């Protein structure tokens, strides 16, 4: 969707953390992106290069850790994995699913110097 603005958000966090934690260069960034979050990893990788140009993260490597979609099926009363929000329960076919994982959009870890 708006991967460019999300990358701006990532850069902002990096800059804040740089002052707080006393580093001046970011070499690698690990993001956790859920499969059900509205983020396209490819678009994210593309935008990250553009956004970080001439910043403390210029040339930094972006690693995206995929978090699979998970839901609680109210019919089977157990956790099931899903690929899309409109997926049916793979066990019983019900749509009574409560999404429990896969919404993440998180900066997990940084390699800095």
């Amino acid at each position, binding site marked *: 969707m*708006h991967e460019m*603005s*999300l990358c701006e*958000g990532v850069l902002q*966090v990096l800059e804040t953390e740089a002052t707080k934690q006393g580093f*001046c260069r970011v070499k690698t960034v690990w993001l956790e992106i859920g499969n059900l979050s509205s983020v396209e990893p490819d678009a994210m990788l593309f935008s990250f290069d553009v956004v970080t140009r001439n910043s403390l993260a210029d040339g930094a490597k972006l690693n995206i850790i995929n978090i699979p979609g998970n839901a609680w099926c109210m019919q089977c009363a157990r956790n099931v994995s899903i690929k899309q929000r*409109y997926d049916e329960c793979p066990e019983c076919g019900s749509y009574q699913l409560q999404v429990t994982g896969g919404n993440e959009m998180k900066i997990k870890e940084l390699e800095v110097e």
Partner: protein
Amino acid sequence: MCTVCGCDEGESRIEGNKLAHHSHSHDREYDHEHSHAHNDQTLHYGHGPAHAHAPEMNQSRMVKIEQDILGKNNEYANANRNLFASKEMLVLNLVSSPGSGKTTLLTRTLQDIKDEISLAVIEGDQETSQDADRIRETGVPAIQINTGKGCHLDAHQVGHAVEHLSPQNASVLMIENVGNLVCPAAFDLGEAHKVAILSITEGEDKPIKYPDMFHAADLLLLNKIDLLPHLNFDIDKCIEYAQRVNPGIHILKVSATTGTGMSDWYQWIRLALQTRLIGHPSKIQTIKVVSESF
């Protein structure tokens, strides 16, 4: 560029004025501090955590961050939410694709319930203040946010707009988001509920084509229901799709032009506002029972 939303700071305007970045303004300060840190320290290997001066020594280290990418927006959204709670306001975020009849639905709603409930409106559009002008014609206070290049409203813009509006206590604030079924789903504005509006001229599969938005909404208004006889729209299928994406979603069939079903929507607003006022007994009014809805 505003780093909360990615829209250009110079483009985003409230009623034609540039968005005033107050003391909590985020980007400028960091740019400033950052450029110093960067220029001074990038090549200085002695400034690392080990304070080592050995040439070629690698001072790379790992830093755990665990921060939400939308954390900044969420902070502003929480501030808005606290403000709305202190003023006992019910805030609704109206989302839809362009052309769903959002503004028509909103103006009709305002006309019909403004004598009963205190109202205010924030209008979000890429350009022009035409919608806010339409709203103000109803006598309800409204403010326009132009997002410029931005594709959604963010909590920061809404916070500033509320400052300009100064809405009354126990009022209902309707935020008409930019017509877009993608981005506004992820940006919390501090609202109590997202209300999705889908007109039946758009096709019944919209809920599964844009699942994020229908998942985030608490209420779905199926608008332009009066056109049903003229269209090839499978309304049951549409409802089924919406419930697949969001089993808990409420769905009301309405027509903003003929008024069909609008009383149900007003009843929903009244109930949501009453729920909001729980704990403030003096403000709870008797709910009007509208005969048409029963």
